[in-house]
């Protein structure tokens, strides 16, 4: 698979993932652009990985979590108003727009590792073992991040769903 083929196939999903991490359209674009430009220069090595997509996702996550990026992000307030982003809001959900907007704002206040765990678990649907691989930590650490994040968000979650990495109760 060439870099161009990879980029064309995976870019939309990477951008969505980056938006979930950052909560910000421009920051997501910056991170994904930077990461893929770096990935291009070492593509001969990345393409040999068992899962190049996971490798690049790890690069995006690391870029998001890095201190340098964190400092930059703190100067950019999260724009949680969907109307200002110019996109549609889909009201046909069990959770109301008000609930999700409020939760979206509170997600932005979480430490980055904790937010990354929630995104990987509840948006990407990855098991804890793969989340640990992406974040470069142990599965127990992943569960710890998730528990603390959910406690901060004051969301109730059954013990089984924490342990199995996002399985619905």
């Amino acid at each position, binding site marked *: 698979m060439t870099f*161009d083929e990879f*980029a064309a196939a995976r870019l939309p999903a990477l951008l969505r993932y980056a938006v979930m991490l950052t909560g910000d359209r421009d920051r997501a*674009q910056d991170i994904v*652009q930077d990461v893929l430009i770096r990935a291009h220069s070492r593509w001969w090595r990345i*393409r040999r990985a068992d899962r190049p997509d996971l490798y690049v996702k790890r690069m995006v996550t690391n870029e998001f979590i890095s201190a340098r990026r964190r400092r930059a992000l703190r100067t950019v307030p999260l724009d949680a108003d969907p109307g200002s982003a110019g996109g549609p809001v889909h009201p046909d959900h*069990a*959770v109301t727009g008000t609930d999700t907007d409020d*939760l979206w704002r509170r997600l932005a206040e979480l430490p980055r590792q904790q937010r990354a765990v929630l995104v990987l678990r509840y948006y990407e649907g990855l098991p804890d073992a793969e989340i640990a691989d992406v974040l470069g930590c142990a599965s127990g650490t992943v569960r710890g991040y998730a528990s603390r994040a959910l406690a901060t968000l004051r*969301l109730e979650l059954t013990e089984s769903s924490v342990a199995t990495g996002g399985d*619905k109760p």
Partner: protein
Amino acid sequence: MTGAPEMLTDTFRQHEHLAPDAGDVLVQIRVGTVRATRRRLALRTAAAVAAIVVAVPIAYVWADRHAQLSVVPADAPTRSRTTLIPGPLPAVLFPLTPGWLPPGLHSNPTAGALWIIETSKPDEPAFHVSIAPRHVKRAGSRQVPVGGKPGEFLTADARSGQTSVSFERSPGRWVTIVGFGGRGTEATLVRIATNLRDEPVTSGTALKFALLPKGYVPMVLSPYQVVLGLSEGNGRDDPRRFRIHYRKLFGDHRKGERVLVGGREAWLRKAGLEDPMNPEDAPRPGATRYRYLLEIPIENGQYLRVETPDNTELSRADVLRFAAGITVPAGVDPGT
């Protein structure tokens, strides 16, 4: 009652619309990769020039006798329909030359791309021309004719102020011209696109080829990385390309069949095509599609790799002969 997992999943999905348009970002990435490659090329060229001045080129393999040097008997050399022809041919930086440019601008070809810059501001690109085998239609674009061929004009991106025109110059050969800083009006971009000529811009390379597969021309990616492409093809992205790369590798890469190439020990193996995520795996038993990978250890963990296209028409013996005709400079560090 909605559970926490569902609530989080719903929250994330309801904000997917915040994601930027992938087509726009792809353009930015292409421009960024070309710029990064250009910077690396400039640095490596400077290093290569310094090294070549003091290096004694080692021609490690040549002559027709190398096939006979193979430790393992070569298989059916007469099968080949693609013959090797004597080199060298000038290496191509970019296969197109602009036939018209706005006043005060000149072209600056790099590996795989053409930058068009202001003569008075050499660090500020005005336009960028690239070629790709396919094209991703972008949101917000509209159709424009380019020299009688269907094309696509993408209006200025609010964030970057860039515009672009893409058109299929020949089947599987998409040309994209990006305009920067407000210079890329539709008329200007179309005029540049219409006047592109099939005249390659050539360059020197640290790798020299005594023999070339017939119909192929060397195309420079960096001083130590050359693609052999069909002259009408797309170069680096053409699946019919040969790739020759001299670089430092970590670990042991002596895999496959031990052969001698011009007296040097080398390692030849076949790579399968079944798993695109692991393109260097051996082909499955009975597979009819594969390519050759030849690794030649040179010095200090540096290898010359010759990679043929999928199902190349070169025989195994031809691959060895071709590799034997490659010269690399001694005493240089090609990097990884």
